[in-house]
């Protein structure tokens, strides 16, 4: 009796793994479409860095009119 239950569990293991994987994959897929909508400016922009980069950025824009 116990042996047959054990066997059943053994057989269930891969099934459980597949189910878990499917659930996890589902979670990832659910969160994916939400990301591109958000504008990613949560990072801290340091003003001194902005000032330091300003001239480089101006040059970059002027040299690549099709991109900026």
């Amino acid at each position: 009796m116990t042996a047959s239950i054990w066997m059943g569990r053994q057989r269930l293991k891969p099934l459980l793994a597949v189910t878990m994987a499917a659930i996890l994959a589902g979670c990832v897929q659910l969160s994916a479409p939400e990301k591109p909508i958000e504008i990613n400016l949560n990072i801290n922009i340091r003003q001194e860095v902005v000032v330091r980069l300003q001239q480089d950025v101006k040059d970059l824009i002027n040299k690549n009119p099709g991109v900026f």
Partner: protein
Amino acid sequence: MTRRLKLIFAAGVALAAIAGGAGVAVAMQDASASLRATGQVGEQADGYMGVVGSAPAGVRAQVDAVNIKRRAFYTELAAKRGAKIEEVAATTACEIFATKVGSGQYYRGPDGTWRQREGSAPVPRPGYCG
């Protein structure tokens, strides 16, 4: 006669290729400006272009192409100056907001809302722009 015809044909093909190449080059040169002018595309505070509302797949593909190039430039400059890619991108957005967004064109601030530039009123820039 046939040889001459072949030559003329070859010359024609070559000319068409040159003209086509020039056409692509011209299109590339003002890609971002003409995208902004459509009103379907705007400039974001994160340094990339974005689609305002729902735009056709062709427009979205052009936006993606521009953004891929921008990302490459930002990455290169960030490495050169020891800054974060996001900082280079945000600094570029400061400059784009000040000089590239025309009257009636769209911009998107850090709050994520698309707004239209009205008349000659300057586009408000994020505080860190200085």
